[in-house]
């Protein structure tokens, strides 16, 4: 009896490591922050190139309370939204068609496959001619950029639907429509989610790059203006805001585009929440 108790106690004695995930992340942030401050103050770089974080935060607050900023944010936000919706829905439809029909897929998909890694920014001059200097060309570039990964991802997703599940559907004599609604669509959700996440990032990049090149509005334009007058803290503040929104968008897609599963059942107890950060 005593021997068993001893073994039990020994088994529980494994020490928890000091560097947990949460602590590592905090440490990394602290180190990055410290390096930034040191580099900025060191005089290695031209004065003002790496401004102290205090200045950046101050600039960020200034932006968030400025009507001008929110106007530009709204313009970019609208461009990204429209580009994202257009590009991803067109991409999803194309992907469905390519994945559903073997022959069509074999003929047309290589076009997408080989065009996908080309730098879409090179199409901007054509789009500027077609759509002018306004929001149209920005939306067009964002949409074209996000079309490709979405189409390829969905096409792959359709082909990768577990064939056993399709056989199950056939044995129950499901109609075509039922097969799509009850089997294909749920099975495609992971591919759709991945495509949407990548598509969002690419739409943002596409819209911003075209704003930077030639525009009178939007956050890309703002950032360039601040750069031109060498207001680096404000420029960095705009960039930080953009990164933050991109991250938020990703989290939102993750939350809303997912299959039902056991994670729904796990209640987020407060202790579980804090355990993540220590």
């Amino acid at each position, binding site marked *: 009896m005593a021997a068993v108790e001893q073994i039990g106690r020994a088994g529980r004695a494994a020490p928890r490591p000091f560097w947990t995930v949460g602590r590592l992340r905090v440490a990394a942030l602290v180190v990055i922050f410290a390096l930034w401050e040191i580099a900025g103050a060191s005089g290695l770089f031209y004065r003002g190139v790496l401004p102290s974080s205090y200045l950046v935060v101050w600039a960020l607050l200034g932006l968030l309370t400025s009507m001008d900023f929110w106007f530009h944010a709204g313009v970019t936000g609208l461009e990204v939204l429209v580009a994202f919706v257009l590009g991803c829905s067109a991409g999803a439809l194309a992907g469905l068609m390519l994945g559903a029909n073997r022959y069509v897929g074999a003929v047309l998909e290589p076009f997408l496959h080989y065009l996908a890694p080309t730098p879409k920014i090179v199409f901007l001059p054509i789009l500027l001619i077609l759509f002018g200097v306004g929001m149209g060309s920005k939306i067009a570039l964002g949409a074209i950029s996000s079309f490709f990964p979405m189409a390829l991802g969905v096409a792959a997703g359709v082909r990768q639907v*577990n064939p*056993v*599940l399709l*056989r*199950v559907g*056939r*044995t*129950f*004599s*499901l109609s075509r429509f*039922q097969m799509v609604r*009850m*089997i294909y669509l*749920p*099975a495609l*959700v992971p591919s759709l989610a991945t495509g949407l996440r990548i598509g969002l990032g690419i739409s943002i990049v596409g819209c911003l790059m075209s704003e930077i090149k030639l525009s009178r509005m939007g956050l890309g334009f703002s950032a360039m203006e601040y750069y031109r007058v060498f207001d680096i803290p404000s420029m960095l503040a705009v960039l930080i805001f953009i990164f933050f929104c991109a991250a938020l968008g990703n989290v939102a897609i993750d939350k809303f585009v997912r*299959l*039902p*599963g*056991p994670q729904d*059942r796990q209640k987020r107890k407060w202790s579980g929440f804090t355990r993540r950060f220590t």
Partner: protein
Amino acid sequence: MTIPTLRLTNVAKTFATGGGSVRALEPISLDIRQGEFISVIGPSGCGKSTLMNIVGGLIDDYEGEVQVDGVPVRGCHKSIGMVFQEESTFPWRTALDNVAFPMEALGVEREERLSRARDLLKLVGLDGFEQRFPSELSGGMRQRIAIARTLAFQPRILLMDEPFAALDEQTRLLLGDKVLQIQQELNQTTMLITHNIAEAVQLSDRVLIMSFRPGRIKRVLEIDLPRPRSSKMMGGERFGHYVAAIWEDLREEASKGLQEMERLRAGG
């Protein structure tokens, strides 16, 4: 004379492949009565899965005829239910929703289909697990969900294609008992494909032994063991005799299959 629940008349199949054609099945005829449990056993490559797919309707161009209750059928039909060897539960549906799936497709009312699904889950021994997702359950439990889902369709004939092949031995034995229990309770006509001789003897009324490709029925063995059966009788003497008799027939066919594979690997 009563009409057999399942009748195969000269069912045969030739596959067209890149290099020519392969005769998978020679004409097979058999009758299965209501409530019977038939096992089809044979070496790898004998065409038993082809036979299963033909009866189940996944292959619809073949020679011969399949009749259910005297009515000829071809292609997938709601009177024939199939359970597959691989994982076939829908990962995005709970156990209950998986079992309710075929009824949902048929348009059965929500209350009714959920209550029937609950009954079926109880039948396969999974009551209490209705709200679990397949990812939270073991392989044996997932196969039980698949069986319950197929039964939800109320098929006249239940086809099972090596449903326990992916499970470990102990789970397989316990599930075998479970399947027997269900089959007896529902008087469900069942056809099981397996390569496990003990399983065939444990579960069936008759065992069909198939020859190596091209597949035909080499012998039909009546298993005259008392019902209700269970895995407990596996050590018994008569059980051992049946197993030995089947192996006697199978060994010849199985070694032909092995020679063929080695020949292909060496020369082909």
